[in-house]
C-alpha cells in the first residue's frame, strides 16, 4: 500500500511494455502533448474566465486579448451585488451533490455486489436500471413533482438528493458491475475459505479492489448532480435552488449578461473541481492495483 502516494512504473498498465523505450526526456514530450490537449478542450472555460474579468463594454470590443481594464464587478454581481443569494445556491448545490454521492453509493455498492456476485435478482435488474436511463428526464419530471408535492419534499434539499439519486443510480450500477467483473472471483473465494463472512469479504477485500471504480463513480455522480438542470428547475423554487439555476438568471429579457454568467459558470466549476482533485489521488495512483500487488 506504499504505492498510494508514489506509484512506481509497474503501476501504469501499459508503461511496462514500453519501459525499455521509456527514457526520461521523452516524458516531457507527453507533458507537452497532454498539456496541449488539456488546454484545447478547456478553451470555453478559459474564455469564460477572461470574459468574466472584462467590463461590459470591453467584452464585444476585445474578444481575444487579456482584459485591458480588469474588473471584479462580475464576481461581485454573482456573489452579492445582483440581489441573488449565490452563497446559498452554492451551499444548496454542494449539499445536493454530496448527499447524492453518499446515497447512490450506499444503495448501489451493496446491491450491485449482491446482483453480480451473489446472483440476487439476476441481470434483468441491471437491464431495467439501464432502461430507466434511456427515458428522457422530461418523462419523469412531472410525476416527480406530483410525488414530491404529496410527500412534502418539493423545494427541499432531501427531495433533490432523492431525484438525483434516481437519475444517477443506473450509471453507478452499470459502472460498478463492470468494475466487479474485472476482479477475479478467486480472490474472494480465497477470502471465504479463510472463513471471512460475505460482509467482511465485501468490506475488506472487494471494496479496496473496487476503489478506483467507486471513486470514479463518486466523481461522476457528484458532477452530474451538481450539473442537473431540468429536475432542479421543476423541483425547486426558492429554498433549494442550486447554482445552475441561479446562474441562468443572468439570461434576462434584455439579453444575456455575458460577464456575469461567465463568472458564475467559472465559479460553479470550482466545487466539482475540488472534489475531483481530492478524489484523483485514488484515481491516478490506482489504489486497486496496489492492493492486487500487495
Amino acid at each position, binding site marked *: 500500500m506504499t504505492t498510494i502516494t508514489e506509484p512506481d512504473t509497474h503501476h501504469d498498465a501499459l508503461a511496462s511494455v514500453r519501459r525499455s523505450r521509456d527514457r526520461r526526456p521523452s516524458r516531457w514530450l507527453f507533458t507537452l502533448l497532454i498539456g496541449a490537449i488539456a488546454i484545447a478542450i478547456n478553451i470555453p472555460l478559459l474564455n469564460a474566465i477572461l470574459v468574466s474579468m472584462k467590463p461590459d*463594454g470591453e467584452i464585444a470590443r476585445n474578444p481575444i486579448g487579456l482584459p485591458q481594464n480588469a474588473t471584479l464587478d462580475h464576481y461581485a454581481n454573482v456573489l452579492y451585488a445582483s440581489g441573488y443569494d449565490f452563497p446559498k445556491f452554492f451551499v444548496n448545490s454542494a449539499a445536493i451533490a454530496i448527499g447524492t454521492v453518499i446515497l447512490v453509493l450506499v444503495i448501489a455498492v451493496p446491491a450491485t455486489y449482491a446482483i453480480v456476485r451473489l446472483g440476487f435478482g439476476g441481470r434483468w435488474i441491471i437491464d431495467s436500471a439501464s432502461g430507466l436511463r434511456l427515458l428522457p428526464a422530461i418523462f419523469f419530471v*412531472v410525476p416527480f413533482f406530483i410525488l414530491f408535492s404529496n410527500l412534502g419534499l418539493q*423545494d427541499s434539499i432531501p427531495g433533490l438528493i432523492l431525484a438525483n439519486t434516481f437519475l444517477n443510480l443506473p450509471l453507478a450500477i452499470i459502472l460498478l458491475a463492470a468494475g466487479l467483473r474485472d476482479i477475479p472471483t478467486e480472490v474472494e473465494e480465497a477470502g471465504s475459505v479463510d472463513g471471512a463472512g460475505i460482509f467482511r469479504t465485501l468490506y475488506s477485500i472487494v471494496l479496496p479492489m473496487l476503489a478506483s471504480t467507486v471513486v470514479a463513480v463518486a466523481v461522476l455522480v457528484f458532477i452530474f448532480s451538481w450539473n442537473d438542470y431540468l429536475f432542479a428547475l421543476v423541483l425547486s423554487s426558492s429554498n433549494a435552488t442550486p447554482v445552475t439555476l441561479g446562474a441562468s438568471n443572468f439570461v434576462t429579457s434584455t439579453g444575456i449578461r455575458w460577464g456575469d454568467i461567465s463568472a458564475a459558470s467559472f465559479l460553479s466549476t470550482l466545487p466539482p473541481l475540488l472534489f475531483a482533485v481530492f478524489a484523483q489521488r485514488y484515481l491516478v495512483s490506482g489504489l486497486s492495483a496496489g492492493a492486487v500487488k500487495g
Partner: protein
Amino acid sequence: MLSKKIGAIGALLVSATMLAGCAGGGSNGDDGDGTGTVKMVAWPGPEGDAMKKVVDAYNAGQGKEDDITVDLVLLSRQDTFSKETALMSSKSSEVDIYWTASYNVGQFSPSLEPLDDIDTSNYFPVATEGLTYNDKLYALPLDVSNHFLLYRQDLIDGLLNDPAAVEEYKAISADVLGEEREPADPQEWDLDDFKAMSAYFSTSTNPDSPTQYGTILQAKNLLYNTMIWNDVLWGYGGNWAEDGTATLDSEEGKKAVQLYADIYTNKWTSPDSAQAEFPETQAALQSGNVAFAMQWSAAFAALNDPEQSPDVAGKIAIAPVPGGQTHVHALSVSLNKYSKNKAAAKTLLSYLATTDAMTAYAEAGGIPAMPDVLSANESLNPAFGKVSESISDYGYSEPVFPKTFQAYSAIAEALSGAWVGQTPVDEAVKNANESLQELLD
C-alpha cells in the same frame, strides 16, 4: 421464471398507477382567508427588477395593512414558461401568481382564474383586450413589448449627404429591386428600402460599404423570431388567417419569406444569423458590424449606454419597423386557478392595477401599459412617448386562439429553413400553412 418477473412488475405498476390516481392535486384551489404569503413568479430583466421593487415597497407598506407578504421568485428568461407549464400540468398550488404574456394566456387559460372583478380602466384598452380570452380577462398587463428599426444614424447620414454614395445606392437599388430608388430617411422606409439598404451596406454587394453586413435577421428556429418575421408579413399586407382559414401561403406570405431568403442568400446578413436571436442581434449592433436591424424595444437602452456599447452609443437611432407594422404583446400577471390563497392574491393584483403601483413600477424601470402613467412620467424615460405612439399607430396583434403559443413555434419550425434559403419558399409556406390550419381547427 420470466413470467413471474413480468407478473411482479405488472402488479407493481398497477398499484403505483392506482396511487397515481389518488395523488395529484385535483382540487380547484381555495380562497384562503385573504391574508398570508402570496408566491409570485417573474423573470430577470427590467420587468422582474421593477416588480421586485414594487413588491418590496408593498411588503413594507400596504402589505402590512393587508396582512399579506409577497414572495417573489425569479426564474430565468428561458425557463419561466417551462416551469409554469410543469406546475400547471400537475395542478400545483405552489405559485399563486403566474408570469404570463398575451401570446400564451390562451394556452394557459384552463389553469388560470378570470380576473373580471378587478378595475382595469387605467390600462391601454388594447393591452387588456390582448389578455382577454372567451370574454374573460385572464391577466393584468405589465410591460408592453414591440419592435423598432434600430439604425446607425451616422452611417445613414453619411449616405444621404454624399452625392457619390447616393449614386452608388441608386445603382444598387436598381439592381436589387428592378427600379432605381433615392435613399430615404429610415423613418420613411418601406420593406423595399429595407432590402436595398441591406444590400448597400453589405460588402458582398458594395465593397466600399462601411459595415460588413447591412442588417442581421433573427432567423433561428424560435417562436420569438416568428413575431419579428410577422412584421414583414403584416407589412406586406398579409395575416396569419382570415375567418379561421390559414393564409400563410398567400402571395404576401411567400413575399415575406422570400425577403428573408434574398437577404440571407445574398449575404446582406451574416450566414451565422441562421442561429441569431436577441443577444446575437445586440452583439452585431454593438460591434458595429451591421448598419441596422429590426429589434425588440427593450434593446435600445443598452445600445445607447456608453458603458455597455462604447463603439456605437450615441449613434443608434430608432424608427418604426419598415412597412409600418409592429407586433405588440404585453407581459402580464395571472392568478393560479389552483392557488390555495386566492383572496390574498387578488388583493395584491388589485393593488398592481392601481396607478400608484404602476407609477412605482415605472420609476423602478418598467414600462407599464397605462397611458396616464406613461405621459405623467415621460421625464423618467423618453421611450415612454415612443411606446404609446407605436402601440396606437403601428401595432397589430396576431389572431388569438387557444393554440397561439404553439402556432408561433410551429411557424418558426416550418419557415426557419426557408428564411436561410435551405428549403424552397413554396414548400415551407405550404407546410407552415398546414400546421397553422391544424392549430386553428
